[in-house]
């Protein structure tokens, strides 16, 4: 059997370069492309963004690969959902007035600002107070970017990926798809074909990024899929901390979110990537909610590099994500700290992959799963030690906490070791919030819901410590909001 040669099965070049047959051009102001996915839509997205030829070709290659997948999406995860009609999704949506990106917050649609307010994200105040640069993505197109000057002074590039394609094509071209190739998996392939926008970060050699970079993603358009694409490159000896917060308002039908995040850390570089995800989980009967099918992967390309993922996942009807690290450089370090909370009828199948390639590479995995109401939580993790990874080390700890008797917690660790010098440790525990603990707290005057919340917060403490301070506060607030009605 031979490996299918992807290139040979591709559509001939001339067909790729054909004029878009429906005649859509950049001049046509389409805020919402028709539902469904075909080559025309891919071309439309690319042309709306005025992308260069190479990127359009890359998208089309991905699209054609996706067509051949024949709805072959991963079915090994412990999640259940009716099959998705990919022709019933909008693949491109832009805010009404995106002709000119606002130069300042005054130019931002007041309604958008109001929504941010409701979400507790007073963009204008908080960004300044917290010293955080915010690249606010509102339905696929960035509407406000601050702190640009300070970053520019340091030589840090932080901008929408569409802008990076325009201004730094050589960087984007070099690294896009270098960690998550377009053929990686069903959803990553789909994303590669239709990605709307996302963030791009480049930190030059020896630079410690002066601010925490923060992006808020938000799904607003009903029935719109959101396909973010994020690429972060930390050059030699640099450091960057990137925070991502997600929120989506109540919507009746399921919304697909298939993002891709790629991180590249060169020699002695460090990337810290933190996520708070609280997308709409669906109602109490399990109707609606976001399908969060995300591919996140980092590559420790250089020696002594480090990539650290911290995630607090409380939202989405279904979460399917495994922020991973490829430990290629010798002595590189990968970390994964996770809190996944499921309540209502939420399902989460999440974990990480640590692939040890370089010598003396080390990885740490600490995963805390909280299951309440009818929620179902699965930790799935792969620790892979390749033959050449002498002296590789992994420590894994998986703890599950159950609230009530209708929820589920599962742990599925995979360990593949091909080097006898590897050292692997795995610890796992499952516990319930005990009546004794609740009574103890309540006897001190704390009400039942707050008591639950304190116990759960305590359970997550080790993870919250990994978050930047202001995010840690938000994370524990998020747990509280997510558990409303499920406890007490």
């Amino acid at each position, binding site marked *: 059997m031979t490996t299918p040669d992807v290139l040979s099965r591709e559509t001939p070049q001339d067909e790729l370069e054909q004029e878009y047959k429906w005649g859509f051009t950049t001049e046509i102001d389409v805020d919402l492309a028709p539902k469904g996915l075909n080559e025309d839509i891919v071309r439309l997205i690319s042309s709306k963004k005025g992308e260069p030829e190479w990127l359009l070709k890359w998208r089309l290659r991905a699209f054609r690969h996706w067509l051949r997948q024949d709805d072959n999406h991963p079915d090994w995860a412990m999640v259940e959902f009716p099959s998705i009609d990919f022709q019933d999704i909008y693949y491109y949506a832009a805010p009404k007035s995106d002709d000119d990106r606002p130069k300042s917050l005054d130019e931002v649609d007041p309604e958008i600002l109001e929504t941010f307010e409701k979400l507790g994200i007073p963009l204008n105040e908080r960004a300044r107070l917290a010293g955080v640069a915010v690249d606010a993505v509102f339905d696929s197109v960035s509407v406000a970017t601050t702190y640009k000057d300070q970053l520019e002074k340091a030589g840090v590039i932080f901008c929408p990926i569409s802008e990076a394609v325009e201004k730094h094509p050589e960087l984007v071209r070099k690294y896009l798809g270098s960690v998550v190739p377009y053929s990686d998996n069903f959803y990553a392939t789909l994303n590669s074909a239709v990605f709307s926008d996302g963030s791009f970060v480049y930190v030059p050699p020896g630079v410690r990024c002066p601010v925490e970079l923060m992006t808020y993603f938000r799904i607003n358009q009903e029935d719109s899929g959101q396909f973010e694409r994020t690429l972060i490159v930390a050059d030699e000896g640099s450091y960057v901390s990137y925070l991502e917060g997600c929120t989506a308002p109540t919507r009746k039908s399921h919304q697909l979110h298939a993002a891709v995040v790629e991180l590249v850390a060169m020699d002695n570089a460090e990337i810290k990537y933190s996520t708070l995800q609280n997308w709409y989980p669906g109602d109490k009967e399990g109707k609606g909610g976001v399908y969060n099918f995300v591919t996140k992967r980092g590559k420790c390309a250089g020696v002594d590099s480090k990539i650290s993922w911290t995630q607090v996942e409380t939202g989405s009807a279904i979460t399917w994500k495994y922020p991973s690290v490829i430990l290629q450089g010798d002595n590189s370090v990968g970390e994964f700290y996770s809190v996944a909370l499921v309540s209502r009828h939420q399902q989460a199948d999440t974990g990480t992959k640590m692939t040890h390639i370089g010598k003396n590479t080390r990885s740490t995995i600490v995963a805390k799963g909280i299951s309440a109401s009818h929620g179902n939580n699965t930790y799935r993790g792969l620790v892979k030690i390749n033959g050449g990874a002498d002296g590789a080390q992994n420590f894994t700890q998986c703890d599950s906490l159950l609230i009530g008797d209708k929820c589920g917690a599962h742990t599925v660790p995979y360990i593949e070791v091909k080097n006898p010098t590897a050292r692997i440790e795995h610890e796992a525990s499952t516990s319930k919030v005990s009546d*004794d603990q609740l009574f*103890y707290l309540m006897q001190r*005057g704390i009400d039942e819901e707050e008591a639950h919340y304190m116990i759960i917060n305590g359970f997550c403490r080790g993870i919250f410590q990994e978050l930047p301070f202001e995010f840690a506060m938000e994370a524990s607030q998020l747990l509280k909001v997510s558990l409303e009605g499920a406890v007490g």
Partner: protein
Amino acid sequence: MGASEIPMLAVRGLHASIDDTAILKGLDLTVNAGEIHAIMGPNGSGKSTLANVIAGRPEYEVTDGDILLDGESLIEMAPDERARAGVFLAFQYPVELPGVRYWQFMKAAVDAVRKERDETPLQVREFDRKFTGMAKTVEVRSDLVRRSVNEGFSGGEKKRGEMFQLAMLEPKLAVLDETDSGLDIDALRAVARTVNEMREPRRSMVVVTHYQRILNYVTPDFVHILVDGRIVRSGDAGLAEEVEDRGYEWVTAGNGAAS
């Protein structure tokens, strides 16, 4: 003590059971404001049940009778409501709360109690001063502020922690459930000192104990002997010494009319 005064704690004909086994079988107890009462009795007599039923532990079912705090019935109140109304239970086995910081736990508890009294939550700095000061007074370990509640504490440290919480929360009624058991002499003295310092006209305390030992340091106004779910004999501090000398059998063998 004026006859018209409402007792701080009034237990009236209390029957309580756990898993359909009757433990308390018609218990009466009156504790006036400012008084310390000791409840003594052999194992299985219902001492700890009484302490837990007053605090509203859900596993116990009250089948008859009433418990009144400052004239108000506690029976229909949830444990947290009772606590906010002024009931404090020092646990026989303080529970470990992994990851829950002592400081935050105490702040939440103090704020909850203050809210009930229509007082504003303490400012962080104010609370911090109170916390640190009280930790010194009660002689709890100095790193308490950073610790998870009771996690990795020795038995004695846990019990001192209960006294610290008692001092922080300033309840109307404190029920000490065998706080003295398993303590070395230093810890016992420290516990007793807190009880004595907390003694004041508007606070009552019920000290549940198996041994007379703690009563060498805390002088109760009344001592009650509990046998088989009823108080069979009451007296002054001398009764405790008598029991210590003669044993509980002496009480059960016919000397037991409640007085």
